[in-house]
């Protein structure tokens, strides 16, 4: 199934992007081989969301190049699945959870066509993976925040993209669900998807992710977490609001997540 063009799934070169002409992120260069799970970390305002939006073309890019399988990413946006940090939806909107998940199928269904039975099947599978099958017919606004987040994740799953860009998918979600979601993301990675996740859970990044991108306006460090997480890189990323604590053979990062 998975088309593997070149060496990299996503390649970002010298990217600068921001708002009203002033860059919020600059000189961003990194490349992700297919089938990897990459954490994007950095304090609030570091530009994690801005990076995602620039990759997806939601804000104009001021400089640089973004390639998906060696071709401009903007020409193949249906191959990128996006979970925004904050879904600003009208909670009263009259759609059910399965309606929302079906929206992920729209690019594959194509203009002017109706969903077919294999689309229904894809929706059911996506709902099953986030454990929302029981709520398939619930109106979207009646779900709790965490359930809504899972519904939107299911929409990304139903889209079946090559690259998943998930902006803080576990914020405001209870720990059990957090683990379930990270387990699901690992499954996706193992099936060949490339998964990029902005997160504040540094310990989870150390334990589960292949690469980490430490971001604070620029790329501070990029590589496997064990190498990229050093006192100096974390200091540069977060200022002095972090500590690395050695607990037995585990390295634990203690973060002040509410730092602005």
């Amino acid at each position, binding site marked *: 199934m998975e088309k593997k063009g070149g060496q990299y799934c996503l390649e970002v070169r010298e990217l600068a992007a921001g708002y009203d002409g002033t860059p919020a992120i600059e000189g961003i260069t990194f490349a992700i081989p297919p089938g990897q799970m990459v954490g994007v970390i950095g304090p609030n305002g570091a530009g994690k969301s801005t990076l995602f939006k620039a990759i*997806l073309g939601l804000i104009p890019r001021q400089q640089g190049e973004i390639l998906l399988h060696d071709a401009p990413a903007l020409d193949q946006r249906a191959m990128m699945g996006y979970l925004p940090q904050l879904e600003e939806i*009208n909670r009263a909107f009259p*759609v059910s959870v399965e309606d929302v998940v079906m*929206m992920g199928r729209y690019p594959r269904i194509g203009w002017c066509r*109706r969903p077919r039975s294999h689309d229904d099947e894809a929706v059911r599978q996506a709902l099953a993976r986030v454990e929302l099958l029981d709520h398939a017919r619930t109106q979207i606004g009646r779900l709790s925040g965490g359930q809504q987040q899972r519904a939107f994740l299911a929409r990304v799953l139903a889209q079946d993209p090559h690259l998943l860009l998930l902006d803080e998918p576990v914020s405001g979600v209870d720990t059990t669900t957090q683990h379930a979601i990270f387990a699901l993301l690992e499954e996706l990675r193992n099936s060949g998807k490339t998964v990029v996740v902005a997160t504040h859970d540094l310990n989870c990044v150390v334990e589960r992710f292949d690469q980490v991108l430490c971001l604070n306006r620029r790329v501070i460090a990029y590589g496997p977490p064990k190498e990229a997480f050093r006192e100096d890189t974390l200091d540069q990323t977060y200022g002095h609001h972090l500590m690395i604590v050695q607990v037995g053979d585990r390295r634990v990062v203690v973060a002040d997540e509410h730092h602005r």
Partner: protein
Amino acid sequence: MIESFVAPFEFGFMQRALVGGVLVAAICALVGTYVVLRGQAFVGDALAHAAFPGVVIAYLLKGNIYLGATVFAVATALGIGLVSRRSRVSYDTAIGIMFAGAFALGVLLMSTIQGYTVDLFGFLFGNVLGISRRDLLLVGLLGALVVLTVVLLYKELLLLSFDPIVAEAMGYPVQALNYLLLGLMALTIVISIQAVGIILVVALLVTPSATASLLTERFFRMMLLGILLAVLAAVIGLYLSYYLNVASGAAIVLVSTCLFFLVLASRRLRIAAKPRA
């Protein structure tokens, strides 16, 4: 009894009024579903008012009134989109600037005409009883265009209305679709002017759909229910207008308003009647 239901429609003008009123109400409710869910009632009102100078100019030049209205409504739709995108003025401020200016132009032009303003008053307040065969044909054609667009782009317009950011991330031409919806609103308003008038058309655009939104949590059902409620209001309004000899556009709108409050009240009662656990 039955006779009093049938009697009004022995007249040709009443038959045309029935067909025209029902068509216009149904199309308004169809498009109104998007207007309500996207929170664009104010935009709808603005487009309607902005069509007025077009009507007056067409009247002065003895041209086609619908054409004049269409040009101005569509131009305003584009203008609203542009002003709000290109400047730091907020969306509703941009609308306020555009529509008040356009309406003022219409009033100014109207004040230059002596004696014949009665016809123009008809466009402000509507007169479904005065609908002609040609009007009906136009309503039918433009209405079919609107319906066809909504049928073909059902999925895309739903996604756009629910989650424009993700729609854009998926690669949909969100800006073009926004303009398309504005264009559909403009066309719908133009074909409604004869029936309900510029000032009241926003009511047909939002009230039946808002009523429907109280009754269902599914998009497609909301669309169908909205259409049903709008048709009901058109028919009842027409009877009232005939028997009480009152303005037809206002009667249709008021029936629609009453239906909204009836549904709202019955919902409140049902919620209040629910036993507390």
